[in-house]
């Protein structure tokens, strides 16, 4: 029996390399350096131009400061894990242009999969 296990062994190797300690799947961008993004007063992301075009706090746009490794949200989604105050002595960069996008409003996700965390196993 000659069996091609390309995906099986690749997945197993990846899981072993990660120590089977995987973070929950997340499609947000991750800040690879200290990053400043523009948000409204609730922390929901806005285009950076909104903060550049107005004085600080003017027009309801505020810089929000994310440390390295934090998630960069899509436009309209709430930023977490950062602060409206920059850390002293830290140089902040703007977010990558690829993260400047809105999640498609026509698509909802997350409607399947919740039972696995309740019951623990799909196996039969």
């Amino acid at each position, binding site marked *: 029996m000659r069996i091609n296990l390309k995906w*099986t062994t690749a997945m197993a190797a990846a899981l072993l390399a990660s120590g089977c300690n995987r973070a929950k799947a997340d499609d947000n961008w991750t800040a690879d350096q200290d990053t400043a993004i523009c948000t409204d007063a609730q922390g929901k992301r806005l285009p950076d131009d909104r903060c550049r075009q107005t004085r600080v706090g003017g027009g309801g746009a505020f810089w929000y400061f994310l440390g390295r490794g934090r998630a960069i949200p899509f436009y309209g989604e709430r930023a977490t894990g950062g602060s409206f105050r920059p850390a002293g002595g830290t140089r902040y960069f703007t977010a990558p242009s690829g993260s400047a996008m809105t999640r498609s409003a*026509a698509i909802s*996700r997350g409607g399947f999969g919740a039972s696995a965390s309740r019951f623990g196993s799909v196996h039969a």
Partner: protein
Amino acid sequence: MIRQTLTPRPDWQAQVEALGLIWHAGDERPYWDESACYRFTRAQIDTIESATTELYRLFLAAGEAVVSDPALLARFAIPPAFHDPIREAWEAEPPSLNFGRFDLGYDGSGAPKLFEFNCDTPTSLLEAAVVQWAWKDACFPALDQFNSLHEALVARWAEIAPHLPSTLHIAHVEDVAGEDAVTAAYVRDTAEAAGITTVPILMERIGWHHEAHCFVDDADMRIEAMFKLYPWEWLVQEEFAVPLLYNLERGDLIWIEPIWKMIWSNKAILPILWDLFPGHPNLLPASYTIPDGDAVAKPLLSREGANVSIRKSGSILAETPGHYGEEGYIYQSLYRLPEAAPGCFPVLGSWVVDGAAVGMGIREDGLITSNTARFVPHVIDG
């Protein structure tokens, strides 16, 4: 049927990991347990194979009875809105792997007895199809094994490939042990061996497109066919249940396995089988009410032996924990599993692909086979 004690290969962990089996460890003993094997005669394998084929015939009849009788389908604790999609899928027979694992009690003589049929999300697939075959080749190259499971899966994919769209999505959830991810990856390998293009996706990343009224993947592309390592009884209860119902009515996504598997994989089928075929040698008496004699209580929808209890003379002898049972129980007569070694009770998992018996895996545990069971390989003498 003899249990033989063996010395495991010195590098067995590396050997099974190289084939993808990374969840080989166990709490007290390894899950992949090659410190023993079971040896069968050819006649015993013939008996198991015949019983498997016969049980598949019984399930066909029972499925027909259930879809034809609303009162029977009502026994299954399935949301009524999904009854029509189940009936329609049963009649239409959309493309499916139609694979499953009959869990059987067998002591080497007499007729194998059915415990249940795991045919929606049956696992121990990689172990049965690939890892135990490689073990046999390494340790007993001159002997045979009841195992053509891998070839049967590839052949079945090839058979249904002409009826599938250009891309098949393979969905699973992330689990700590990696068992789901690797098993789903193995299913990808079997499909791609049949020439099917596959795309993996996590269940929680499946999207519903409100304007196009379809399920979409991470790249917002419409999902047209999907193998899901995720049980139907969860799908119909989750947030996307309403879009799912709409999707099933439109019929523009091929679900593998199809929704009619909710009938066969539900333990409510067991009393119906006994009613249809009373006294059948491969069945155990089963009922919806507590019987007088010794019995095993099983939730309709539990997985990995959770919330199963053994009742003898009105008292509970053994039971497993879990979160199941809200949907009700069935009661199956107690079958005395052979104690092949102290504390080792084997349950046979006889695999079927579209009606054909194609292989076997054996799990050992205590009186109730649960998620602490160990996979023990087998060979055929002669």
